[in-house]
């Protein structure tokens, strides 16, 4: 007879969701990275008026926000994986995970303030 699990072994599916979003956010960031590198190469040398004006463009603000939001989710999954691998005491690990999540939320709000706060 086959051994039955007491609980549903696949749980809440957040593992697959995180795994998939880790990759989706990576694709978003890769696209933004290639775009920014090409833009910098085409507009060298960079100066303050040009720097300021590109960040006042709506499409670039939205693109940058999308990049940072992707980065934060990506960083959350990556840092959580690292903490799960190396920090075995549950209390310390959860405290560090809470710290990472808090810092990432702080960065999200900070980015919005940088882009639209002035």
């Amino acid at each position, binding site marked *: 007879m086959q051994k039955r699990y007491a609980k549903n072994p696949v749980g809440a599916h957040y593992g697959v969701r995180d795994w998939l979003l880790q*990759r989706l956010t990576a694709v978003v960031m890769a696209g933004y*990275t290639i775009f920014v590198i090409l833009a910098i190469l085409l507009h060298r040398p960079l100066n*303050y008026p040009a720097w*300021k004006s590109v*960040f006042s463009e709506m499409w670039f603000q939205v693109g940058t926000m999308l990049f940072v939001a992707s980065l934060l989710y990506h960083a959350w999954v990556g840092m959580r994986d690292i903490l799960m691998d190396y920090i075995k005491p549950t209390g310390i690990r959860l405290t560090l995970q809470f710290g990472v999540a808090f810092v990432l939320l702080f960065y999200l709000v900070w*980015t919005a303030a940088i882009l639209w706060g002035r």
Partner: protein
Amino acid sequence: MSAAPKTRPKYYDLNLAHLPPPGLVSIFHRISGALLFFPALPIALYILHTTLGSAEGYARWAAFFDRPAVKIIVILAAWGYAHHFFAGIRYLLLDLHIGIDKPAAGTSAIAVLVLGLVSTAAIAWCVW
């Protein structure tokens, strides 16, 4: 039935030189990822904040980036980003079962290491 021993022996080989290329790609992906989260990310946001904040802030950072020591740090950061970028693309391809067999995975790992270094060299050339 005897009780399982409380502590099991661990045999860690922490010498990275013993790792094959896919292992090196993996551990550098992890280390660069952690360093991009901290300290690279908050520094990048702080630079964005001050350079967009005022012309003086922009000029101050431009002068700061002219220092050779700072350029070296920028180049190291660029290597971390470039390696994470290329290693990530390799993992995306592996997820799609492209280059999954052992010889191909070994070749692509070497390609990632080389591309990371070549693009860092290109960035170094631009920065200097």
